[in-house]
């Protein structure tokens, strides 16, 4: 394949790229037919791709030829039809990989730029094969690059072109796998740690719409991936569950902070209130957790695969505690408001923990949870979740298999045993930490 370079050199930029694509297609078909395992595109070819399609500078001396934006658009158009016309999935995958598989060299920048445009265009003109390839790419690539791709798409469809979010929204029926990976990437990208890293409302609405439309969308990548344990290092999570939990838990506080920040300037976007959206999202997430036992059991993975990682939960807990601290310090909003929002965040965390634990998405002991949540302020529900069903399970280290979430409340509620701490926490409710006393019955207080 390397011998075609000489014939490509004299061509103009666009026709050279076109010709290379053509040759690449044939080459990969041949490669697959030869039946070599695994099918591997050789380095020569990759170099040709970098030189004639990505226009990465080959060496210092020769300045790279650049395509104009128009030529680039033409190339994208050609690529779109090329992938569309190729009927064989494997060829498409190999080709996509040859073009956009990250090589860890300088060409990666132009690769990412081209990929962003290609996927964006594929979304616009509905090229499902490309989206499928992109979904695979998102599963295999380093999360940093995945996040960058997601960023490009969010920019294109949620902020740059008004009204175009519907185009993206329509994708979920065409390529749910891509949507699933997209959600994972987006939740990784927007961790609500700052204003820039807060998802645009359009995006949020779209994701909620997607998930409400089909709860299993979240799990599609997980369902379609053969769990070989060969998950590439630092790739995205298998499911967006962790990221979504983080969104739901942090949202009350994060958005409150944003609101406060944008209010004085007076120009802050007064979009629709995101509160209900997150509530809906939270519900959906909990519902997805409830779907898990069946799926896991089918795969025979129940109790063996943790879809929620312990360390990400620990990070979430510490971030939450920092947010709560900040919320306490900033007394711009009324204290009652702050208090309510904090409790909402903690409630959501508790709910998520409980449901995840109960449905086998989170594999850990309550001791571990207590350690993680020790710095969080007091919350009734969280206290409940952390203390666990002490009355019925003497050995709290036993994984609460198939534990019904509804069962968690009733036994303790019916046992308001001693009330030794009744006065103390109520004196400073917002500063009351989460001291856990082993063996001590939890004093239930219906309301503060």
């Amino acid at each position: 394949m390397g011998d075609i370079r000489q014939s490509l050199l004299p061509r103009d930029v666009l026709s050279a790229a076109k010709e290379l694509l053509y040759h690449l297609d044939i080459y990969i078909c041949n490669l697959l037919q030869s039946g070599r395992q695994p099918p591997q595109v050789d380095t020569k070819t990759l170099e040709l791709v970098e030189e004639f399609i990505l226009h990465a500078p080959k060496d210092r001396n020769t300045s790279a030829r650049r395509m104009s934006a128009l030529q680039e658009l033409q190339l994208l158009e050609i690529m779109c039809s090329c992938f569309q016309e190729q009927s064989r999935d494997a060829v498409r995958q190999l080709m996509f990989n040859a073009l956009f598989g990250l090589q860890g060299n300088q060409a990666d920048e132009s690769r990412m730029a081209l990929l962003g445009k290609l996927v964006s265009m594929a979304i616009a003109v509905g090229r499902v094969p490309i989206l499928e390839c992109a979904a695979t790419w998102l599963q295999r690539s380093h999360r940093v690059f995945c996040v960058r791709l997601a960023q490009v798409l969010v920019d294109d469809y949620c902020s740059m072109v008004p009204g175009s979010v519907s185009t993206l929204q329509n994708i979920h029926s065409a390529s749910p796998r891509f949507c699933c990976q997209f959600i994972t990437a987006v939740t990784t990208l927007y961790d609500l740690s700052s204003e820039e890293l807060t998802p645009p409302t359009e995006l949020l609405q779209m994701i909620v719409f997607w998930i409400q439309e089909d709860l299993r969308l979240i799990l599609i990548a997980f369902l379609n991936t053969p769990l070989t344990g060969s998950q590439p290092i630092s790739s995205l999570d298998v499911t967006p569950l962790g990221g979504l939990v983080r969104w739901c838990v942090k949202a009350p506080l994060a958005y409150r902070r944003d609101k406060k920040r944008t209010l004085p300037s007076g120009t802050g976007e007064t979009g629709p209130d995101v509160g209900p959206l997150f509530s809906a999202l939270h519900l959906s997430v909990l519902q997805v957790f409830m779907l898990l036992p069946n799926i896991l059991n089918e795969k025979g993975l129940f109790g063996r695969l943790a879809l929620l990682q312990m360390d990400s939960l620990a990070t979430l807990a510490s971030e939450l505690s920092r947010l709560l601290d900040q919320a306490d310090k900033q007394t711009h909003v009324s204290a009652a408001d702050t208090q309510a929002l904090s409790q909402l965040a903690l409630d959501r965390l508790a709910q998520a923990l409980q449901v995840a634990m109960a449905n086998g998405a989170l594999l850990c002991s309550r001791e571990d949870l207590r350690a993680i949540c020790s710095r969080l302020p007091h919350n009734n529900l969280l206290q409940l979740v952390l203390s666990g069903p002490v009355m019925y399970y003497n050995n709290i280290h036993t994984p609460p298999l198939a534990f019904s979430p509804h069962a968690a409340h009733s036994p303790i509620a019916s046992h308001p045993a001693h009330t030794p701490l009744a006065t103390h926490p109520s004196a400073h409710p917002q500063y009351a930490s989460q001291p856990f006393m082993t063996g001590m019955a939890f004093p239930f207080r219906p309301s503060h």
Partner: protein
Amino acid sequence: MSVAFDANPVKAMQSTHTHTPQTPSAQELSQEIKSFINGIDVAQGRKLSVREHARCAVRLLRLVPACRGAVLEHLRGVYDEHVSAFLHHLETDGDSSSGVSSNLEDIIQEIHSVLSEFIRLNPRAWAPLVSTWAVDLLGQLSSKHAGRRVAPHSSSLNELLQLWMSCAATRSLMEAYSQCLAAMLAWCPDACVDALLDTSVQHSPHFDWVVAHIGSAFPGTIISRVLACGLKDFCSHGTKDQGLMMMVVDKGSRVPKIGSVVGILGHLAAHHSDSIRKELLRMFQESLNPSSPLSPTSSSTSWESSPQLRRAAVPFLLQLAAMSPNLFGAVSAELVDLLRPPVLLQLQTLLQGIPREELDNMLGLAVHLISQSPSGGAKVLRFLADTATPASVIISGPTPSPHEGVREGCDRLLQMLLLHLHKLVFNRTDGVEVSPHHSSCMQPQRIIPFLEELQSHISQLCAETLRLERKRHLWLHQLLCLLSVYGGLTVATEAFCQLLTQARNPEELALAWQLHTMLSSCMVGLIPAAVTRCVAQIHTHTLGPRQLKQLLLNLATAIQSQEEDTKGLQSSMATQVGTAVSGHLQNFSGLLLHGDPTVSHAAVRLLSCSPLPRTSSPADLLLLSRAAVTHFFLVLRKQSEGTKAGRDGGQGSEAVNCSVKLLSRFAAYSALTLKAVLQQLIEGALHKGNTDLFGGQIAEMSGAPLTSPSASTDPGVSLLDINCRFGTAVNFTGSVWSVFHAGVIGKGLKVRTATKMPDPSWVIQNVQTLLAVIIQCCSPAGLNGSINGSQSQDEPAPINAEAAKVVAVTLVESVCPDVANGELSWPPEEHARTTVERDIHIRRCFEAHPVLFPLLQVVAAGRPALCYCSAVLRGLLATLLAHWEASREALSTDSPWHLQASCLLVSCMGEGQLLPPVLANVHEAFPHLSPFEVRLLLLTVWEYVRGNGPMPQKFVFSPDKGQFCRDFSRDGDVARYVAPIHSVLHKNIDRLGHLCWRFQL
């Protein structure tokens, strides 16, 4: 791979369509993209017009985000096309079909509205994109079409602006950019200004109109942003220069932005100089403030947060100032005011972190700037000098205070400045000298604005220099030198004059000499010019009495320095000063009579030591002599009053000495001056106003009726009546009207006005002074100055005969009003009756002016001058004879004045060798005799003189004595006149025995 949903993509697509019917289907979009790419309507298979193509592009822009780049690129072409059409239309004056341009105008409007909507909806995403695009396109368009016929030249900014703003395409781009900028200013203003600057560099100068327009639309922000960008760029280039560059790759090729920063600011300076100045100063101040990274205002983009940038700010500002005189001018004036001690400390700490070479560069730059600053130079200089002047020795301890560093820095700066100016000044003159063929107007001399400006501050500079503060005066003095060399003779003259006027002691005056020494090598005629200038100042009365005094004293000191140090460096200069002053003697002489005594004193000091001109017009000399004499009397009166009041006698006597010296020198100058001086001295001494100085009484002595009647005491007598009666006021001497001198007949004797007698001691002193002056004037030694003054101590220098004659003649003129009977030879005693009137007048004169006798003695000493006083002597003797004849007193001592007058008269005549010694000695006997006997002896004297007339030709010059002598042996026998003497001796032998030997022949 795909398990669940890969099955039927087409169905999925269809479901997509049903969701959003208003948006075109993916299929349609795909078609649209194809159409756009190929420029052909895919459905109908025909070529798209420009307009349709553009519409298609806009649609894609709205629908397919991925096409953004391509669409914008395509739109560039559309805009370009419109501009071409527009310009073509202008060029053909609209006679061609203008359809294309109008067609495109609406599509451009469409594009603009879409873009503007996008920017409005999502400024964060679109503003950077569109602004870069718009600016780039603007740059490209203005460069590309710069050469068109209708396009005005790039220097005429306003025309350019008008042209482009009338074009829809460029106007739309400009509006879009303004919109972006307005949006972006809130959060990332650097980016957009960066793009602006980059493009400006790339397309300058055709792009200037854009910057100008934007700049005037957003003056405040643009200015500060342009500065911030420039600073960043400067910083990165600066680090590159130091070899610390981290990112080597693509920065090397970039042109520094500072050029366009200067250009833009320079353009804005026309209308927004105030805000530019504020911004520059703010930048300076902020760069000094200690870093406050947590300050709420500073975002991550602002330069204040980076210590590296803050450190670069000062060099950057210097660089800016160096590149644009406009900016520099805007800042320099106020910058100095900002440099208070705390700011200086901050500046110092800031600069400490900068490497040595860079610091040197900065210093060099600063020096260059100062030397080029057209205004505020004086302020800068004062600031530098103030700061660089060390604190007093007592305060600065062994450990240097924090200010010490600042001070040293300033010191260094100042010295470099002086060095720099030195180079400039001397290279400049060198250049002129090297090419003397080229006329100076053809190649104008290089102007050094700093010095230009300081030229108007010379007097302050001089004043500060003269304060002699440590170090400071050295700097300032050096600067004065440079200024003088730079400004040529006029400036040098002024500086020199100022120093001369303002110096108050020898140390300070030495600065003037130093200045002269330094300038003398390159300047001719400085001193004469300076003196001329001083004189001019005197004439215009621009100097106060104090300054005037100082100036005169300084000039005097200058001249005197020659005497002290005959072969030093100063001698030539002293000579020059002397010559120059002597040229203006008459001007200085006017000052002798200045109302302020200190000034006149200073003037006399100066005149007394200045050499006299070789030639001078008699009128000047006379004026000078008159002034000198008048001054002498004034000083004398001052001294007397001073002694009377018991204060500053020393100063008074010093003034008198000076005056005496001046008079004697002046008298020695020429015969004319000698005569004038003596004449005026005598006349002055006898003048009514001065008589009291010498113990005289003011009494009418002229005998003229005009002066005699005091109307207040004699209301009954009207001079008018008298004059009417006789029709004339002629003085008929000896007539009845002469009675007036004693009173009006019928009214009794005139009441003598009671004059208060002055203190005899100072009368004596004054008389002595006067005599000393006259003698000094008369003595031939006066010609040689005071060299043989010591010799005259032992043996009084002989009085010059000629001078004595002048005195004599003057005496006669002033004492004796009547020239009748003025011959030298004496008539018989009886004839004296014809001259009674005159004689009385003479006697009264002597009564009123006791000083006359000493003067007579002086005349007598200058033999044979006394001969010319013959008339006076005769008159006096006649009245004395008449008195003694009429006297009925028992002893001569009963009329003391007459006795004294007689004694003095006779002794004078003896001294003047009008009488032989035997006869001259008779006065010794007078006090012991009766009036009649005195008369006898005086008659003998008369007889002798009548017999042996007082003729000058009887005197012969004897070289051994150095004066004229009379040989009495040639005259008649003395013995026949001695008989009455002997008779009187006999008669009073009891009392006069001891005197007998005096009358032996």
